[in-house]
């Protein structure tokens, strides 16, 4: 239970804590983005909170809700000494996703570096003061931010041109009597007449197995 942390935050930053809730034991404070780094420093350094473990940082795109600060940057913190955890959030960005900027907390917790890079890569949130803000999962040539809800999930951006041959979009047929046969056959050259196949079983030497396949097709 870390409702006390929320109370301390509210007392420390009057007016900057927009809302708090403690649903399902997850104590959450929604902060003004302006105090993001100060709040992080306070939570790390204050002896009553001592949030010395940075757990996670990500963002959520609330496009479907139509909120004007469209993204919600979410950060989970934990104190190993005090054994409590807290979640802080900040809402940034307009409807188009522009102006989604927030202070980086890498100066506070070094481990936030790759989390913020991932957040920038996939959701396009710019972390001011980040030492090395570049894509971490997608390639640099990728345009856009794929985890935004207005990015079509199946829009590919290939790095190399695809082969220009027919039927790459289609695989050979899967029917039981179509396509190439299995390799379990005698590698005789095709002959005609009696003794055409060494094992004497035409069905097997054609790669087809007698029985159910023919019945089903």
């Amino acid at each position, binding site marked *: 239970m870390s409702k006390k942390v929320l109370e301390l935050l509210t007392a420390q930053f009057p007016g900057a804590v927009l809302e708090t809730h403690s649903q399902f034991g997850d104590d959450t404070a929604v902060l003004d983005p302006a105090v993001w780094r100060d709040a992080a420093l306070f939570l790390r350094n204050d002896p009553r909170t001592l949030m010395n473990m940075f757990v996670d940082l990500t963002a959520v795109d609330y496009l479907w809700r139509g909120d004007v600060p469209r993204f919600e940057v979410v950060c989970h913190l934990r104190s190993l000494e005090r054994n409590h955890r807290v979640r802080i959030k900040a809402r940034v960005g307009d409807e188009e996703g522009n102006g989604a900027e927030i202070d980086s907390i890498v100066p506070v917790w070094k481990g936030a570096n790759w989390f913020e890079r991932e957040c920038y890569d996939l959701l396009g949130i710019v972390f001011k003061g980040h030492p090395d803000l570049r894509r971490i999962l*997608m*390639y640099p040539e990728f345009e856009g931010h*794929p985890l935004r809800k207005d*990015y079509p*999930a*199946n*829009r*590919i*951006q*290939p*790095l*190399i041109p*695809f*082969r220009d*041959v027919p039927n*790459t979009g289609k*695989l*050979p047929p*899967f029917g*039981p009597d179509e*396509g*190439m046969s*299995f*390799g*379990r*056959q005698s*590698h005789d050259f095709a002959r005609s*007449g*009696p*003794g*055409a*196949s*060494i*094992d*004497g079983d035409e069905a097997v030497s054609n790669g087809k*197995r007698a*029985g*159910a*396949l023919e019945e*089903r097709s």
Partner: protein
Amino acid sequence: MGEMKAGGPSTRVVEGSEHGFATTRVDALLNWAKKYSLFQYPFVTACCGMEYMAMASPRFDMARFGAEVPRFSPRQADLLWVVGTISQRQAPALRRIYEQMADPKWVLAFGTCASCGGFYDNYTTVAGIDKVIPCDVYVPGCPPRPEAVLDGLMLLQDKIARGDRTPAIVKPREDPAQTTEQLIALQRKERSLP
């Protein structure tokens, strides 16, 4: 020494202590040699790698098929196993590996991700390696059974022996039991119903 009767002309099998000769065609001989000396390049990217290891390990033992030697240099390999999901980011690397392999070379797509992208219909994944490099054998399945992969390997060897380069698919085998009665009969080790 023995006689084999196959309903046609009899074939005399020459014992090792006897002298003899055989006639064949040069291309058939070369294809036979290629077929049983496949050097593999495992391009392993994802969970299918475990299945690949299982197939190389004693229970399924890929070494039985003359396709044992893994070479981790494309210059020394002639069979490229694409094992696992190929992302858009990896596609240039895959194509470079393929281009660095010396002819003659073959490609086997291991698993459904390599064959067609699998359930990844998204911005990350290449929907099948044939978008990037030509592919000889597709082994579907998530993961493919090792038997299916061995089928694919034998299918590829078959194609090499025939000199055939059209893409091929390892098709699912028929289920031996279509009905409950047949399943019960199978369990009783009886012959399945006609």
